[in-house]
């Protein structure tokens, strides 16, 4: 069986209810349904998740490393964008 044509999928797993899906890795699969199956076998073998998303890697538009300066640096000195003036109550996880 030739597998050259199997597209790449990016896998996102939600570890528990209330958390968001996090990128965990990628895999090859011929279609979405099998990508989901493969993701279950590769990335949730130890009960790591309660939900899985698979996304065709080709569908992801990513920022380019060359644009790093113009994209991210301007935020560095805008301290008022950060919620640093609030006290975080105790026992509030995942804020």
């Amino acid at each position, binding site marked *: 069986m030739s597998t050259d044509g199997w597209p790449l999928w990016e896998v996102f797993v939600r570890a528990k209810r209330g958390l968001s899906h996090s990128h965990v890795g990628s*895999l090859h699969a011929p279609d979405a349904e099998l990508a989901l199956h493969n993701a279950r*076998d590769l990335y949730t*073998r130890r009960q790591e998740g309660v939900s899985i998303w698979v996304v065709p890697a080709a569908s992801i538009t990513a920022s380019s490393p060359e644009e790093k300066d113009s994209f991210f640096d301007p935020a560095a000195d805008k301290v008022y964008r950060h919620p640093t003036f609030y006290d975080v109550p105790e026992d509030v996880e995942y804020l």
Partner: protein
Amino acid sequence: MTGSPALHAPLVEALADDALIYAQRLGEWISRAPQIEEDMALGNIALDLLGRARSLYTLLGSLDGTGRCEDDYAYWRDEREFRHVHLPEIERGDFADEMTRLLLLSSLDVERYAALASCDDVALAGIAAKGSAESRYHRDHARLWVLRLGAGTRESHARMTAALVRVAPYVDELFTDTAAEQAGVDAGFGVLPSSLREPVLGFVSAILTEATLDDVPDAGWHSRGGRDGIHSEALGYLIAEMQHLTRSHPGATW
């Protein structure tokens, strides 16, 4: 408790041997599957079956009065003492062969373990409930591939058709009742394989139809005797590989 330990033992032994031997066969796919992702998938299924076999052997040691442990059953019995049906032991074929075999065996496991999940033996019921859930996943994996291979290319369709011819002689044995199973059911324990024929093959047929494949063809001969310890040449090689390390170095740990 309905039935008795002596009554349960041969039923548990048959289930355990089915699981162990197929785990060993499936393990052969690691590094040989079409993709590394599929290596993992088949390896996971094999490990599910191995875990199930271990639980069943541990239970069996308390049922048959010998007090044997899981390793005693797996490594220190000879060919004629294994009680699995023939299908899991036949040599590994191509990927279509394996998906066909997996579809049949996992469909059988889903049904028989679901039936056992409500039995009076609490330990066995627990193993069966877990086994039924695991096997639903195994069955789904086989289903996805059979659909894709059957309705895929001319080559994959031809290979699926050949795979169905290859497994056909081994299907009847899956649904043949043994004296032990009949005795169990007479005492209100267990499930007759013959009663599972329709749900299992009905499920399989529906998948094959959806995959644009013909049903499992009639075979000119049928395997039998696996539950009595009558096996094919293939089992000798399988258990030689499975057992040689333990037998060469008894008591070794690592």
